[in-house]
């Protein structure tokens, strides 16, 4: 049996670790140069960050296709053909079964000035530190909402403390939501005491390092310097999912702003496969059954595309899918993992209830803020495509405004435009893109 895994992150790697024990051939595709995905990103030459999976990276039963962009997957008589671009050349291979584990993209909320150099996603800062060993900027602000801010703060602070030569420092941490909202995850905390301890350990780390999280605060504007880079932020109170505009605004000088509002599933690959999706916490996620089977025969899905949940949940999902692929869905090993998946899913859903971005974020954001960074389309241009021009979906709004038509193909703005589309009555907000990545005509013609 030939199996392809799309995505070499936690879910894909965990599946591969189960599959190697059976008589199957395994090909793993990933657009990055090494295994690990975003979570286990590491510097070249460093050993794999999680020892459980260390030996997999040079395992003889796995063929790795790195730096490889899957742009199309076709249904065949008895299986699927993957078409991908590697080193500027097209490769095509046929498989009996597919596991899609293509992960998530970071969610950003538009704020005036967020296109300035110096403003980046928290994930970008994390990847610069972990993948390159670089901390750009001297006065650093971490802002946004969600549990991902925690590891970014910790990685950054540890790196700053290690390198005595740098004068860089964290000058502000702003979390839109208050700690008291954690009651919404009480059930999840009881079922996952390891996670509760992790949260406590982090709060202790903050105190030890004299780092203060300003909660209920949000960046409402980024001001530019003479050289057109980020220079100062305006900080506004955030209550009941709205900005409290007025006298209490503060200003803070900084030159690097790392922002994050959590993650949203990357449905690029699921949408070229036309897999059925459902709405969960306003995110479109791939519909799966208890064995991670999708709506199409022979295709499984695992990890963040089946609902944001973090790397440990992704590992369980990958393993459960792998057992089912080799016909061991009813084994004890699979049952144990299903129980653990249930426990972790409850925790992840609790986090979503605490930190989910309001569907009406655009009501409190600025009118002229750029939403589509590639094509430079403002919030009001997109809103008026719905209210005045009669757009009724992300797709029709895109045709009127060009939002989502640029180089990133809507990866950054789609989720944000989706919220606006939903308000104006359209349920049809499905991602609808037949090609899975940027491909030049030259690469296809060879």
């Amino acid at each position, binding site marked *: 049996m030939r199996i392809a895994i799309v995505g070499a992150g936690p879910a894909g790697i965990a599946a591969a670790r189960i599959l190697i024990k059976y008589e199957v051939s395994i090909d793993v595709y990933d657009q990055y140069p090494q295994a690990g995905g975003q979570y286990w990103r590491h510097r070249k030459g460093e050993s794999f960050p999680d020892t459980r999976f260390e030996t997999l990276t040079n395992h003889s039963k796995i063929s790795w296709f790195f730096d490889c962009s899957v742009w199309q997957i076709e249904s065949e008589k008895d299986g699927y053909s993957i078409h991908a671009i590697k080193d500027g050349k097209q490769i095509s291979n046929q498989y009996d079964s597919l596991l899609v584990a293509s992960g998530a993209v970071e969610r950003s909320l538009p704020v005036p000035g967020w296109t300035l150099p110096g403003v*980046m*996603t928290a994930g970008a800062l994390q990847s*610069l530190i972990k993948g390159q060993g670089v901390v750009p900027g001297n006065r650093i602000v971490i802002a946004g909402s969600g549990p991902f801010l925690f590891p970014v703060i910790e990685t950054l602070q540890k790196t700053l403390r290690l390198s005595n030569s740098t004068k860089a420092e964290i000058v502000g941490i702003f979390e839109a939501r208050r700690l008291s909202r954690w009651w919404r995850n009480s059930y999840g905390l009881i079922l996952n005491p390891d996670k509760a301890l992790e949260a406590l350990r982090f709060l202790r780390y903050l105190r030890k390092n004299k780092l203060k999280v300003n909660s209920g605060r949000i960046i409402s504007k980024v001001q530019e310097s003479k050289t057109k880079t980020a220079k100062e932020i305006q900080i506004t109170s955030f209550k009941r999912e709205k900005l409290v505009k007025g006298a209490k605004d503060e200003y803070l000088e900084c030159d690097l702003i790392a922002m994050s509002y959590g993650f949203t599933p990357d449905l690029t690959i699921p949408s070229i496969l036309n897999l059925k999706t459902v709405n969960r916490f306003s995110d479109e996620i791939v519909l799966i059954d208890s064995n991670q089977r999708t709506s199409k025969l022979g295709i499984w899905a695992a990890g963040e595309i089946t609902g944001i949940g973090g790397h440990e949940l992704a590992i369980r999902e990958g393993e459960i899918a792998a057992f089912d692929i080799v016909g061991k869905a009813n084994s004890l090993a699979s049952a144990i993992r299903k129980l653990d998946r249930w426990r972790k899913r409850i925790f992840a859903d609790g986090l979503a209830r605490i930190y989910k971005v309001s569907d009406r974020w655009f009501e409190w954001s600025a009118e002229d803020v750029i939403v589509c960074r590639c094509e*430079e389309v403002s919030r009001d241009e997109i809103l008026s495509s719905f209210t005045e021009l009669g757009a009724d979906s992300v797709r029709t709004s895109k045709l009127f405004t060009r939002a989502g038509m*640029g*180089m*990133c193909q809507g990866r950054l703005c789609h989720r944000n435009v989706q919220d606006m589309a939903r308000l104006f009555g359209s349920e049809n907000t499905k991602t609808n893109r037949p090609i899975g990545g*940027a491909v030049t005509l030259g690469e296809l013609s060879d």
Partner: protein
Amino acid sequence: MKHFKFEGDEIPFNEGESIASALLRAGIWQFRESRKSQQPRSLFCGIGHCYDCMVVINENINQRACLLEAREGLSIKRQRGVN
């Protein structure tokens, strides 16, 4: 240390480092100008999704500085207008 050229200047880089990382370490923040309003853009998502860090490498446009490894002798320019 090895170098590549950015707008004519020699930029040093570590083995295996991305172009974006080497530029930021050298204090260079502006990677390109946006197409419509010619505003400066830089690294944003850091993982190849957003295409905001596009530069021109040896006359090839639309190259993502965050993904591509720096190599000796590359000639890199700011990307203006295209996308």
